[in-house]
């Protein structure tokens, strides 16, 4: 059977082409226009996969997205993709695929022995069997035998892109109904119509039609679509998600059909589709019949047989038998006969069938068995024989007759399931139609309509007779979900164990949970559950479909937002100068900032300590540009700020600076910083680094939504100014080296003062505030001069020992001083009274944001976590932020350490924390607990270094 089958003349493939490909290490050839599935069938490859749980050999069942068996691992290395349906891969030269779930290959699978002990692996085997002693002791085994494809280890080498598209009418599916709907909608030239189809070429089921009239109808319709300016056709595009307001997510396969390394910029495109109206023409999927050993290779859906015969021109077998419960399979059998493919027999469970069909079969020389069931199949790697049983004639069971038929291909049809995944995702409800045993659209809130087979319009009656499973024979080997090995017996077991909700049964049995999400198994499972629980199908209910309809490449969700493009990077204006100084960088907020400036061979911790000592003893230079800078302007600016801060802003004088704490309306501290009065109607607010955008939003919301009568504008100027902080006893000396028109002397420019002027001929703003405890000048110049200022200060300060210092040394210095860092030393409950600001609040006369919340019972609780210093009793002791302060009985947490550093200036650990009632407990000893270690510590003032503040006034 390894010879390539000769193709029928009407096939839609290029008959004289040769496309080489490899499956499970063997070389084969197919034709241009083949799918991997059709090419494998053409080469007589019957076994293409192994089932998930029991490793039973499985062949190709379907021809499209419904395929449960033919899952392959496509390509290798950085191009590999697991669980790809062979039915959906267009053949390209050099394609390499591997069968899954088998070792060493799908033909000789050693794990297939598991099938022998199927009775040990019933439904729910994960839940029951592997509970003892616990799941972990079994996990290795289950992972090994139960994996599907292999997840790629290397990063995906392909690139992906995302795009938006808008249309008045979106038609999903370019089969007959979809094409009709699109052309109809496009009659109005003002309407933009988007037609989306998931196959390699548009046409839907018409691609598998042997009828000349249907083929020419398709050709005409496609040329009309091409001529219409207002129709956009997106081929190879699967709509996977349907969301609110007619927003659809679709995945276009741009170069998959060319294989890896195709040279295309993007392999796939993720489309966000915005639709005015949506028309679903998504067709229907044929259902298998459920009978003993219905999972053998060589058993195929009748619709797939039709497609492989007419679209791909394959004569699939010598002995072809049909087994059905409805008329559609008869049509397929007669079409096969018309193109010269021999059909041996049609078996139909119905006792009576439309006489035209019966006569057609008789004329074609096809045997037919009415009122007959298949009760078993035989064959090793594929089906060879069928056992059929005629229903008792006239209700007399003694006249049942059993026969055996040879069969190389069994084409089955158990009816049709309209493809309503998208309809269900959109919020649509489904109703059950008894006559065709299928779910059809009911009602929907969105602007959507469903046409064609998706709406249950089958173009001719099915005359279906329902049979959910084969009665009177054991249910144990009647397969429902081929991929996850779920049988009718498993569903009955779930029902016996009192799982009655369809959602619970799904999860307990795993029916429909495989990668195809039950496209062929859901409705059969529903029918069997209804029988087992003696209910009607509508009473059982259905599971709701969720996106995606078909698995979507993760890379497509990411698009180009990967690596360096993952998120914007903020670089400091003086970034290059920091590189020159040997800075190591890290992300702080959205900024890349110097951590420290290690010398060659110096460890980071040593560098941080060295920098912190240099600031205390000489002078340090820090790039402080990310410090938030908001300007507040307008006649009501002062009144506004007085409501925004807990501090009094009414008395703030021109050129003066004042520390402020900002709360939200619940009284929680959200920011702190220095406020400067630039003019009577103009203020400069400094926010926590990285907090500028959030605080800007906070202020804007109050101005726009609450105090709409205030005339105030807030603008975020953070990135317009580069700010360099000179800090240390020699800071003034360094700055005085530069030509500046501001009097920098101690007498005229004191702590918490602000001056504007010119530095080296350029505008500058200088603030004297301090986050280190040393004399500091925060010098701001327009951002474009940031780098020059850094370089000049480094040059001029060289003889005074100027040392560049990073954010970690700054944090060390402020911890020594006990200066609060919002977000580190506070949490989502911290109120100002927990930070020692109770007195200021009491003195403030007017209302401010959050003021009333401070006197709610929660604000008055004596056990609130309050800011404090912690001094370890062991002078060599160390601790870490996050360590717990234990309650006296050591049963609960009494607070925790929020900042902890080893102070090189004090040569001991300095720690800050928030501890229950700390303000009233100063001097008390507590236990600090971390990682099993207990240490004694004393609650002390947060300020460990220079508590008198002498350095500040130097």
């Amino acid at each position: 059977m390894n010879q390539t089958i000769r193709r029928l003349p009407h096939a839609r493939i290029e008959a004289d082409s040769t496309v080489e490909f490899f499956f499970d290490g063997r070389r084969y050839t197919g034709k241009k226009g083949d799918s991997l599935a059709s090419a494998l069938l053409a080469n007589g490859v019957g076994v293409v996969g192994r089932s998930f749980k029991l490793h039973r050999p499985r062949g190709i069942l379907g021809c499209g997205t419904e395929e449960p068996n033919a899952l392959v691992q496509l390509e290798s290395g950085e191009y590999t993709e697991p669980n790809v349906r062979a039915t959906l891969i267009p053949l390209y030269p050099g394609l390499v695929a591997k069968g899954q779930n088998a070792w060493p290959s799908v033909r000789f699978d050693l794990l297939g022995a598991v099938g022998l002990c199927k009775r040990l692996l019933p439904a729910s085997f994960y839940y029951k069997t592997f509970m003892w002693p616990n799941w972990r002791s079994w996990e290795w085994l289950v992972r090994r035998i139960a994996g599907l494809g292999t997840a790629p280890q290397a990063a995906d080498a392909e690139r992906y892109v995302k795009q938006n598209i808008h249309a008045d009418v979106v038609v999903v599916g370019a089969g007959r109904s979809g094409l009709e709907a699109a052309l109809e909608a496009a009659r109005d030239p003002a309407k933009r119509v988007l037609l989306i189809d998931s196959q390699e070429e548009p046409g839907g089921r018409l691609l598998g039609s042997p009828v000349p009239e249907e083929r020419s109808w398709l050709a005409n319709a496609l040329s009309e679509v091409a001529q219409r300016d207002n129709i956009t056709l997106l081929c190879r595009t699967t709509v996977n998600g349907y969301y609110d307001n007619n927003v659809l997510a679709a995945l276009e396969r741009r170069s998959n059909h060319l294989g890896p390394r195709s040279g295309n910029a993007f392999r796939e495109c993720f489309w966000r589709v915005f639709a005015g109206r949506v028309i679903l023409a998504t067709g229907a999927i044929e259902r298998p019949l459920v009978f003993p050993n219905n999972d053998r290779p060589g058993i195929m859906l009748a619709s797939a047989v039709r497609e492989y015969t007419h679209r791909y021109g394959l004569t699939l077998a010598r002995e072809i038998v049909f087994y059905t419960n409805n008329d559609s399979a008869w049509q397929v059998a007669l079409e096969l006969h018309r193109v010269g493919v021999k059909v041996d027999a049609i078996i139909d469970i119905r006792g009576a069938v439309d006489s035209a069909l019966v006569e057609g079969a008789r004329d074609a020389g096809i045997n037919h068995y009415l009122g007959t069931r298949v009760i078993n199949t035989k064959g090793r790697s594929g089906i060879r024989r069928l056992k059929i049983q005629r229903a008792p004639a006239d209700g007399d069971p003694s006249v049942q007759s059993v026969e055996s038929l040879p069969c190389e291909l069994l084409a089955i049809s158990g009816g049709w399931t309209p493809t309503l995944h998208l309809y269900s995702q959109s919020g649509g409800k489904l109703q059950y139609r008894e006559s065709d045993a299928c779910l059809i659209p009911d009602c929907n809130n969105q602007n959507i309509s469903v046409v064609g087979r998706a709406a249950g319009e089958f173009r001719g009656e099915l005359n279906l007779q329902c049979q959910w499973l084969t009665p009177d024979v054991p249910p144990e080997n009647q397969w429902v979900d081929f991929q996850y090995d779920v049988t009718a017996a498993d569903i009955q077991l779930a029902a016996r164990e009192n799982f009655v909700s369809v959602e619970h049964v799904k999860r307990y049995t795993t029916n429909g949970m495989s990668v195809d999400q039950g496209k062929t198994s859901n409705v059969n499972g529903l029918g069997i559950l209804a029988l087992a629980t003696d209910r009607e199908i509508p009473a059982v209910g259905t599971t709701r479909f969720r996106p995606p309809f078909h698995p979507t490449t993760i890379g497509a969700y990411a698009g180009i937002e990967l690596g360096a493009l993952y998120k914007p990077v903020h670089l400091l204006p003086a970034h290059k100068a920091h590189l020159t100084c040997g800075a190591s960088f890290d992300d702080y907020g959205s900024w890349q900032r110097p951590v420290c400036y290690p010398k060659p061979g110096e460890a980071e911790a040593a560098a941080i300590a060295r920098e912190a000592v240099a600031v205390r003893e000489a002078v340090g230079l820090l790039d402080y540009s990310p410090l938030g800078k908001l300007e507040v302007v307008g006649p009501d600016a002062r009144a506004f700020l007085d409501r925004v801060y807990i501090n009094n802003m009414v008395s703030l004088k021109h050129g003066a600076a004042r520390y402020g704490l900002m709360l939200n309306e619940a009284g929680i501290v959200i920011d702190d910083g220095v406020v400067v009065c630039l003019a009577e109607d103009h203020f400069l607010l400094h926010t926590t680094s990285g907090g500028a955008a959030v605080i800007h939003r906070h202020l804007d919301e109050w101005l726009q939504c609450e105090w709409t009568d205030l005339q105030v504008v807030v603008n975020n100027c953070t990135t317009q100014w580069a700010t360099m902080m000179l800090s240390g006893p020699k800071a003034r000396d360094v700055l005085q080296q530069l030509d500046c028109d501001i009097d920098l002397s101690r007498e005229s420019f004191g702590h918490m003062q602000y001056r504007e002027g010119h530095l080296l001929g350029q505008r500058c703003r200088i603030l004297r505030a301090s986050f280190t405890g040393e004399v500091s000048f925060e010098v701001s110049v327009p951002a474009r001069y940031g780098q020059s200022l850094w370089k000049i200060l480094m040059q001029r300060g060289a003889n005074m020992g100027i040392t560049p210092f990073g954010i970690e040394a700054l944090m060390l210095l402020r911890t020594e001083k006990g200066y609060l860092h919002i977000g580190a030393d506070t949490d989502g409950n911290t109120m100002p009274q927990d930070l020692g600001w109770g007195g200021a609040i009491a003195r403030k006369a007017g209302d401010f944001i959050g003021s009333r919340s401070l006197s709610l019972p929660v604000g008055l609780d004596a056990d609130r976590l309050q800011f404090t210093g912690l001094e370890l009793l062991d002078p060599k002791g160390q601790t870490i932020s996050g360590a717990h302060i234990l309650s006296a009985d050591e049963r609960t947490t009494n607070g925790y350490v929020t900042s902890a550093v080893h102070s090189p200036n004090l040569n001991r650990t300095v720690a800050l924390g928030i501890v229950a009632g700390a303000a009233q407990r100063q001097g008390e000893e507590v236990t600090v607990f971390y990682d099993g270690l207990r240490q004694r510590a004393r609650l002390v003032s947060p300020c460990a270094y220079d508590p008198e503040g002498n350095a500040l006034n130097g």
Partner: protein
Amino acid sequence: MIRIECPWCGLRSESEFTCGGQSHIVRPENPAEVSDEIWAEYLYQRENPRGLHRERWRHTYGCRQWFNVIRDTVTHEILAVYHMTDSAPEVSGGRE
């Protein structure tokens, strides 16, 4: 995903906006004088209707302006867009 008609910029994608929750919440005029209960209600009590909801949105990645919308929480349909200082208009439809 929905699209929202910003009163300043026109019809834009939801991804440009930030929802600020229920609108028309009245801040007590003299916070110091109201009871804990009234203050807590103002802070935390919010409607959660199945149907029409008056809420405020901000065109964050656009003009940064706040405005009000009336949205049906079942269908996400937006039935009205109006300025922060306007009172809520009467709308038909939805399912209040």
